[in-house]
């Protein structure tokens, strides 16, 4: 189907002719497939039109028209993952890149309000000027800074900067029928400080486990919590891309990658570091990740990987310490050293003995920019987002189990062989964690079939061994698999969808649809 003249003109009247297009050349550029879970097909189904709205009023009008015309719409911010795509004809895309203002950085109350087109780097850079920092999506600071847009929002900074669900404060939302709703304190006082009131709180309902992936209207502004930043107001760099070396991260920072003899010791180290609240970052960081992040090409990555394979076990943690004063730094360093001794953590000398490598890694992980190197440079495609989020050890065990299935794919030569080490990241200095695998592959039919088989097995492990609902669970099919094992949550999720979106206008194939 293509939009008829009446439909096109109606949309055009809202945004003006410059900001709508249904020309095939424009449409194909949006349907080029994402590298995340890339299938063998080059293109996803074409949108009927791409619309670039600029205001809430425009979005409301577009959403209402979509309902009227029985069309679907899907919003996107940076549009990276496959969940930004149409899955069938009859859908228009709302590309929100023009809505890119930082509305406010409230230093006193430590929150920022952003539109979805602001990327993580921008918000972080502005926050740092004020002695603050914001969490970043582990995918990288090229993602939206909005805490409800991307995904869960776990990442390098989650130990001190938490993640999307917990960072999200007040929210401005355009429902799938076009109503403007202000959540939390915004709804009653016009202020952004709280996501749960006074005023209506629909946080859990609209957010679900992993944000609704375009399937529940459009989030136009969101407030996100901010955290203290112990570093400089801006970081000076030496060198030229792709090798930058920061020169101005002061001496109150330290970075280590520790390798532990077994899971038990790594688990203990994670808990002790959390209890002592000494880490600015704490993240499972295996040899594959370290090699890809440090190297500036695949050739170099292979060499580093071989080097690290002799030095690192499958149980590693990356730690960054940031001191707010010399004494604070000294204290944290001493505690860390003691924990490393107690848990037999061996420091990777490439990092601890080479200040340039250390500084480079530190900045690349404080402003996470090398995830693209890590997951996409090897093959252009990545599909490791199978992890769950629960007790650190439970998630670590889940990933160890799924890593065995990954190893089988490696044996079958379906994916890049990085030795299948698992990794789990720590959250909020606590017992909470998120595990994932790094799976990189060239998308051809047999590799893709292998991937699908892997996903099915990862689901089976999660369900049969009671690891909970992982973060990759989106779509009817997945929710219908998990729901019956988890208090039939899928039925409630579908009811939420149906209540807010009776016409199914907000394209929900990566969330849930209104089907019975």
């Amino acid at each position: 189907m293509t939009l008829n003249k009446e439909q096109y003109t109606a949309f055009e009247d809202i945004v003006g002719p410059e900001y709508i297009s249904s020309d095939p050349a424009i449409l194909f550029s949006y349907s080029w497939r994402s590298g995340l879970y890339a299938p063998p097909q080059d293109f996803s189904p074409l949108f009927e039109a791409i619309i670039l709205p600029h205001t809430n009023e425009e979005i409301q009008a577009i959403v209402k028209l979509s309902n009227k015309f029985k069309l679907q719409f899907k919003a996107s911010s940076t549009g990276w993952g496959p969940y930004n795509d149409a899955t069938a004809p009859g859908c228009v895309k709302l590309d929100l890149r023009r809505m890119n203002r930082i509305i406010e950085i409230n230093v006193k109350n430590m929150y920022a309000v952003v539109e979805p087109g602001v990327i993580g780097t921008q918000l972080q850079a502005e926050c740092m000027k004020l002695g603050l920092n914001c969490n970043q999506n582990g995918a990288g600071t090229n993602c939206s800074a909005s805490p409800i847009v991307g995904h869960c929002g776990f990442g390098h900074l989650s130990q001190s900067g938490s993640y999307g669900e917990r960072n999200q404060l007040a929210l401005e939302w355009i429902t799938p029928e076009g109503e403007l709703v202000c959540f939390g304190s915004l709804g009653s006082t016009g202020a952004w400080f709280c996501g749960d009131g006074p005023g209506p709180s629909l946080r859990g309902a609209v957010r679900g486990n992993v944000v609704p992936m375009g399937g529940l209207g459009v989030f136009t502004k969101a407030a996100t919590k901010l955290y203290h930043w112990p570093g400089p107001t801006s970081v000076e760099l030496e060198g030229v891309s792709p090798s930058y070396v920061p020169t101005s991260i002061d001496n109150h920072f330290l970075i280590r990658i520790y390798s532990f003899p077994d899971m038990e010791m790594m688990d203990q180290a994670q808990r002790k570091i959390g209890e002592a609240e000494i880490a600015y970052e704490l993240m499972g960081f295996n040899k594959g990740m370290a090699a890809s992040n440090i190297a500036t090409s695949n050739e170099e990555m292979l060499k580093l990987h071989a080097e690290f394979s002799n030095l690192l076990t499958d149980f590693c943690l990356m730690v960054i310490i940031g001191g707010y004063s010399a004494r604070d730094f000294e204290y944290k360093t001493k505690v860390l050293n003691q924990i490393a001794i107690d848990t037999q953590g061996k420091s990777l000398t490439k990092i601890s003995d080479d200040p340039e490598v250390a500084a480079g890694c530190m900045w690349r992980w404080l402003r996470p920019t090398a995830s693209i190197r890590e997951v996409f440079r090897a093959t252009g495609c990545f599909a490791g987002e199978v992890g769950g989020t629960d007790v650190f050890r439970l998630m670590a065990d889940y990933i160890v189990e799924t890593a065995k299935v990954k190893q089988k794919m490696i044996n079958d030569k379906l994916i890049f062989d990085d030795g299948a080490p698992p990794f789990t990241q720590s959250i909020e200095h606590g017992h909470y964690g998120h595990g994932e695998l790094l799976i990189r592959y060239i998308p051809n039919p047999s590799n893709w079939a292998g991937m699908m088989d892997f996903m099915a097995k990862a689901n089976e492990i999660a369900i049969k061994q009671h690891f909970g609902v992982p973060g990759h669970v989106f779509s009817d099919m997945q929710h219908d698999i998990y729901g019956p094992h988890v208090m039939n949550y899928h039925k409630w999720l579908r009811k939420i969808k149906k209540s807010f979106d009776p016409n199914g206008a907000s394209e929900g194939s990566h969330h849930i649809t209104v089907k019975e």
Partner: protein
Amino acid sequence: MGLEEFRDDMTTCCRCSACKFVPLETLKGYDHVNICPSISRFDYRAFSGGGRLGIGVALLDKQLDYSSPKLREIIYNCQMCGACDVSCKYAMDMEVLEPMNAIRSEMVKHGNAPPALDKMITSLKNGGPMLLEGNAGQGEWASKLGVKDYTKQSVQVIYHAGCRTRHDKTRWAVAQQTVKLMQKANIDVGIAMDEPCCGGRAYQMGYQTEAADKARSNMESINKLGAKTLVTGCAECYFAFKVLYDKFGVKGDFEVLHTSEFFNRLVQQGKLKPTKKVNLTVTYHDPCHLGRQGEPYIHWKGQRVPGQLIIFDPPKEFRRGTKGVYEPPRELLQSIPGLKLVEMDRHKEFAWCCGSGGGVIETNPEYALWTATERINEAASTKAEAVVTGCPGCESLFETAIRKNNKNLKVYDIVEILAMATL
């Protein structure tokens, strides 16, 4: 093979959007996050590096057709500045700008290049300059300099002024000062009264055959002269002689240097002494074809190793913009007494383009001006009094942008600054 040669590169695009932004490690604030003029101005993904690669795959898959007017609008509203290529290669092992060049070449083959460009190519083929307007005579600019004509007398150093300088009277002073500075340093320099166009811009516009033909014919005559060095003050000519001709396999038996490199050497060697104070705060704009695209060409012929990893046999070293000409102009400016150099947020390999490249100044002057205005505003935000650069294309567009926006900034070629301190 054309575009097909780049299928693997294009299908490696993971849609991460890094090509829209400066390398993210470098950002210091909200502003100046964007690196791609094209998507910044036109907003649809099609106008970004990644979007263009998606379109390339659709063209190969015959899902799109070369004759589309919208396709022409997308493909030619891009300065071919190569910033997307640098930002992508911060992380990835894939080509971005090369396939974009290949798409343009296909557009030309399919007769869907903008007519304004065809006109310039006709001029090139007839031995003329690659300009839509301006024809102020060939060697007239040098008539009072007493400089050798290298086509008639042997010289050590060829000074190639470039079409944009020779045919624009407002640029003559820069060429004249270049020669005077060389004369002051006792350089055995020559120019050609009948200087040929380098043809480099034809390549960016998609006319690869015409550019290669020009490269061959130029090198045939220049190689015979036995000069040791070719110096040019135009970034586009520099790119042509240094990078493109090498790519075409007609690299000369002489060194190619930009005026900033050449004069910086002379200053470092004590052969030129900038002694007069130039009390100015300036910011330096890296021309795309001198900076990121000015890094030497790396010859490679091989293939991707089959399997689950993008590596090559023999190993492929990617041009990532790392080895462009960044330091010599800065060193030269820092050698000028009284002058203070301040950097713009976007500099060196992630400098924002002036706006004129890729045929944009000829095909969409409004967009070229928009791009230059963005740069001028960035320069003004440094509190500099002047923008210094090393390309007549950048200079004239900046001057227009300053005039249209009523800014107080001045624009200088780096040679003019050296001349102020030295002549």
